[in-house]
């Protein structure tokens, strides 16, 4: 039986009037790659940030297997956010070392782990270079090395192959699978179904802040009685995706007045057309 590493129980997350996540419950077990799949704005990044302890749940809990909150046990986690978050005036190694030191890991241990994975990602020669001139792929690989350097139990990856060329994306996916084979746990957020199917042992489909399906790809097909994951996804997310209408609703009376003042009114009558000229 697999050991539970992370337990998300009945989590809800609000941002003002917006309910980003609604009653999410999820168990993450050791040694698996869990794919969080959903459209833009579905709630994947919010869920990842809750797992990383960046957000606190409005209700419910996100706990590690020992019952501790993730915010107090962040050294268990390695996170690669979508933006990678590299400092351009530091070298790749300095970026990695900075995070490792914050995790309380010595430079020697951190270097040994970095060297091992850098070899795999073909990044060893670039570790001493400033990240300013790095391509998207190199930035992503550096962020991955940074997340691995302190030896986390759980790796959280937000769209790790977004914007990468085919070769770089393949390398990243291969590394993720290697980590799983070595007993690591990876939570992999993506909106690419094909990629999720290729990499993940288990797929969690999120839509409008709710979990619509959770299981291995094969089981999802059986449950939805479909032949492809794409069909399964469509059948599970038939309701329209949320819009960001609430952004407009939040406009204050003052900003609304200011905006209207400088927005030319479209003339509708002949008199208005004449006046506008």
């Amino acid at each position: 039986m697999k050991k539970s590493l992370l337990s998300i129980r009945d989590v809800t997350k609000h941002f003002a009037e917006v309910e980003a996540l609604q009653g999410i419950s999820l168990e993450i077990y050791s040694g698996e790659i869990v794919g969080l799949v959903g459209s833009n704005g579905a709630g994947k990044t919010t869920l990842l940030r809750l797992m990383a302890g960046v957000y606190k749940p409005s209700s419910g809990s996100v706990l590690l297997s020992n019952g501790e909150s993730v915010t107090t046990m962040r050294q268990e986690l390695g996170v690669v956010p979508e933006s990678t978050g590299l400092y351009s005036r530091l070298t790749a190694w300095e970026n990695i070392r900075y995070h490792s030191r914050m995790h309380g890991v010595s430079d020697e241990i951190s270097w040994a782990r970095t060297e091992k994975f850098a070899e795999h990602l073909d990044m060893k020669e670039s570790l001493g270079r400033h990240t300013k001139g790095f391509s998207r792929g190199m930035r992503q690989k550096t962020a991955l090395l940074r997340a691995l350097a302190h030896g986390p139990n759980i790796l959280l990856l937000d769209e790790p192959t977004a914007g990468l060329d085919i070769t770089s994306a393949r390398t990243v996916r291969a590394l993720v699978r290697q980590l799983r084979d070595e007993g690591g746990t990876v939570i992999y957020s993506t909106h690419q179904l094909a990629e999720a199917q290729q990499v993940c042992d288990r797929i969690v489909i999120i839509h409008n802040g709710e979990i619509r399906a959770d299981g291995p790809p094969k089981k999802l097909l059986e449950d939805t009685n479909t032949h492809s994951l794409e069909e399964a996804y469509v059948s599970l997310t038939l309701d329209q995706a949320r819009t960001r209408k609430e952004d407009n609703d939040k406009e204050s009376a003052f900003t609304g007045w200011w905006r209207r003042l400088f927005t030319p009114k479209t003339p509708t009558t002949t008199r208005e057309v004449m006046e506008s000229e």
Partner: protein
Amino acid sequence: MSDGSFRRVRSIAKKEVVEFTRDWRTIIAIIVIPLLMFPLLFILFPILLESEAAELDAMELTIVIQTDGLPTNLAENITLSGINYTLETLPNTTSLSTPGPDLERVRNSSADAVLRFESNEDVWGYAILHLSTSERSNEARYRVLNVLAEWEDSEVRERIELGGLDVNETLDPLRWDGEISSGDVATTGEQSGMILSLFIPLVLAIWTYSSAIQPSIDMTAGERERGTLEALLCLPCTRMELLFGKWLAVATITGVGVLLQIFGLLFAIGYLASSSFIGVPQLSIVSVLLIVLSIMLFAIMVVAFELALAMRSHSVKEAGSILAPALMLILFPALFTQVINLDGIEGFWFAIPVVNILLALRELLMNRVITEHVIIWAVSSIIYATLAAYYASRQFSREDIVTSLS
């Protein structure tokens, strides 16, 4: 603070300083400009003024003298001062100052000035027509006035002698006896402290605020905009550690900038003035310690306030548009403080934010340690610094700091 916490704060501060100083623009803004600003202003500016003055001195000027009889020695002195003149008869005007028909010739620079000189038996009347917006015309007026003043002085002396009086006794009946400086009982150290107290607090306040703007924005709104903050917030450090680390980095960078600027200022003054103009202020150990405390409290308050405002902002642009005008919150009290009379000052002044620290610095630089004032400014500054730090911690604890406009 635990060992781990201290280590993380140090790592954050160190990384911020290293990253910040790798930008050449930062080196210019924080080190080169503060170091060179005052020396350039105080040394090059006088050199420029001197060369301009020499140029004016060498200038040959042309004036018109309208008179009904010019004393010979006055005419000679006018020629000796580098002025060429032509003589004309006095025009028929209501007073000598009325330009009348000479208005245009001065305005179109055909004459640099017009001197009207009229003799009325023992008393002469005169007026100089000039164009105040012209350097040449101003210089002509200045030289003519000098010649007239000298001529008047010799006339006065001559008349006193003719009246059978002693010239010196008549003109200077009240005299200071001995060295004027011996009458000041303040020591040289106290006088130096007094001079320093006129500008050090002002420079310290304005430069502390303004040099903290750039690093504060870069380390908060900048991180937010570049998307590096999210990765940082996933690390095992508390938001308070993050705030403290960044505060330490901003305070270090700002401290270096302010110190260099004060060094540059003192160097410029030392170069410009004689060694007696400014010296080392005579300060007791207590004054020195209180100066350090007041600067620290001020730095805590200002840097925390700036970090908080910058962290509230979604972008570098937004942060800049908030922090730059907020300089007025420091500038006006700082200028206001300079004119407050410290003798018999009421205690409440030492409780007003910004004003309290600047007044404290002025007093302490003059080696005045007044217990009542020290208690008021120390307690009020601790309260303001705590409030600023609390406000900053609230901003750093916000969940939305992880999101950026991009």
